[in-house]
């Protein structure tokens, strides 16, 4: 038997990678979520989760925090991306770079810096939820700007010309050309910001003095004591994120452009 080299074989490393680092871990989580400490099949964790107001409240709080973070990031990022993509300015990449460079500085350092600033202003310890959301917006903003900017850059100039030839006002051009065509960028931006703001408990610990508990912290604490419950919470988070991604349209196959944006 001779081995023929085919293009398909190039995919093997990726398949192996996906198997070991994506599929197997998911199965392990699934296994732990539906077993008890004696490793017997059990729905106890599931029932406990949905009958405990604390856990449901934490999910709701996390959702609300993530929602506000995403909305604020979007409100800030959209005009920035629009102006950068549409302006005729030379060297506009410098401005883009200024927005993105914080991402290259160590995360813990940035959060510590914000913590000091907030302490200086006097907000630390006073407005824990505000601080947490502020920190998250600051931290995740580049993830919103970048996909928006690249999608907007790709919008064909001739569409704008056609729009103004047909007598559309600037506002109509925006609502009928820019907005619909930038939707894939909006969707991927939302996906990139929503999940980390539900789970990044370092921000809520540092800026909310650990008084703000989000679902990520919950998972972390459960993994210190009870892996089964921790896996169940992780699984539920997975489903919540999957649903919200699906709702924002992140899973539609025809919009392959988005993949390139990231």
């Amino acid at each position, binding site marked *: 038997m001779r081995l023929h080299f085919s293009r398909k074989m190039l995919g093997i490393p990726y398949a192996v990678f996906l198997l070991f680092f994506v599929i197997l871990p998911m199965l392990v989580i699934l296994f732990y979520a539906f077993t008890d400490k004696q490793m017997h099949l059990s729905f106890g964790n599931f029932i406990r989760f949905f009958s405990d107001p604390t856990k449901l409240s934490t999910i*709701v709080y996390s959702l609300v925090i993530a929602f506000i973070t995403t909305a604020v990031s979007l409100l800030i990022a959209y005009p920035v991306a629009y102006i950068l993509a549409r302006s005729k300015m030379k060297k506009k990449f410098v401005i883009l770079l200024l927005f993105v460079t914080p991402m290259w500085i160590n995360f813990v350092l940035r959060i510590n810096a914000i913590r000091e600033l907030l302490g200086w202003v006097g907000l630390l310890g006073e407005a824990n939820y505000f601080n947490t959301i502020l920190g998250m917006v600051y931290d995740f903003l580049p993830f919103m700007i970048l996909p928006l900017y690249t999608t907007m850059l790709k919008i064909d100039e001739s569409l704008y010309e056609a729009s103004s030839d047909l007598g559309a006002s600037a506002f109509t051009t925006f609502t009928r050309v820019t907005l619909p065509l930038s939707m894939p960028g909006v969707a991927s931006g939302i996906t990139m910001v929503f999940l980390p703001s539900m789970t990044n408990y370092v921000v809520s610990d540092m800026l909310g003095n650990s008084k703000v508990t989000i679902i990520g912290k919950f998972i972390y604490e459960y993994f210190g004591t009870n892996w089964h419950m921790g896996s169940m919470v992780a699984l539920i988070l997975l489903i919540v994120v999957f649903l919200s991604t699906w709702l924002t349209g992140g899973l539609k196959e025809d919009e392959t452009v988005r993949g390139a944006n990231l």
Partner: protein
Amino acid sequence: MKLKRFGALALATLAAIPTLMFTAGCSNDKTVTLRIFNWEEYIDEGGEDSWDGTEDAPAMIQRFETWYEETYGTPIRVEYSTFGTNEDMYNQLQLGDEYDLLCPSEYMIMKLAAEGYLQPYDASFHDPSIEGNYYAQNVSPYIRNMFESNRINKEDASDPSTWADYAAGYMWGVTGFTYNPAYVEGSELSELGWDIMIDPQFKNKVTTKDNVRDSYFVALAICYKDEIEALDPTSADYNARLTEILNRTDAETIEKVEAVMREMDENIYGYETDTGKADIVSGKIWLNFAWSGDAVYAMDLAEAGEDEDGNETESTLLNFYIPESCANLWFDGWVMPKGANKQAAQAFVNFLSMPENAVRNMYYIGYAGVIAGEEVLDYVKECYEVDPAEYENPDEEVVDYDLSYFFGDTVEEDNAIFPADRVQAEERQLHAHYPTYEVTRRCAVMDYYGEEANETINELWSRIKSETLDAWAIVVICVGIVLVAGAVLYVKFGGKLDLFRSRPKKGYHRIRQENCR
């Protein structure tokens, strides 16, 4: 923390490459390996910050490797890794990681021993007459007594095993508050005791630890304040009764504790694991719940006018306050899991117990070690002994500090009583570093609560830490989410509704139809 661990992993991988190549190249069958799992920053790591103060001062691990080969003639290689919490360490063990020596806290030692993870020390290990048994020869009689009198399994009367069977001590201390005397008077604190945590005058000015056991202890001390104060400190069973109160986990207690913890949650500035030191120096908070060793470290740094990264700041004097009613007494000790290399592990514990090495470790990490003896006493005196002749008013400003209970017969009689600055002895480093016998008498050890109680307390903790909404609020928000989701779905798949297209103008249809013809 996570990042740190990942970094450590990457480093470990890098470090493993040459080792692998080495072992593959010329395998030396005789080399012994000792796998140690210890707290982060809990051993002398050599270099400029160490006792010797020179850049090339070897770390404790290297010293041990050299010493072991010289003493036993076999080369040894130490694989050293660290953990951040007792629970992390326990998880690693459960995952099947194998070690020869671990350094958990007392309650985790009890849990591990009760679950059969540990093997006992050799009986000869505790015999001071055998040469090389540095631990048995140098350990403080106070610590030895603690380890020999605390049982592993308090519930089961048929199990006589004690901590000493499974563990050798390493570091110990008490809990209390570091406070900034610029804002808080020591006498004010004495009136409040643990109530500091719920007192409105310290609203947003005090922190507790972001860990359930420490906060639970504080809440217990507040709950049973009256009962604790009613105990007679002179009675023989005083400490036993105190310990019983501070280890309660019955349903009624949990209910009371929950109410107190809620009050604490309202009152405190926040929960912290390591931001407290910086926050108290910068004046953000006035009081910080702290372990004694950490407190000594924070006081030293603040006094020297340095932050943790060695940058210069203003010099601040911090004090340490141990509540008069009670405090928590804790120990970290070395234990050997089953399958460990006992000989090498015990040799390591003995090596750390040589007085000079004990001093090195104490100097580096700031905690109080379990080792006594002249050399350790000299170190303590070097830090805290004063000359009364230098004081204007020695009767007022100097006190005799008595550590005989700790040093016992390891030093010459009365040597462990030395003159110390009154401020040091009553509210600063010395008082935190080596508490007096009177302080240790009112300290209780927190036991392992058992699986069931542990679970209940963890649930209690998560209730305190998260905001719990009323049922109706959850329902309303869930309905809201479903409505939004429904609207999005309708927009996406309903097809008919197009938000960005205005209605066709009148006459539009007719024109189009005409065009078609």
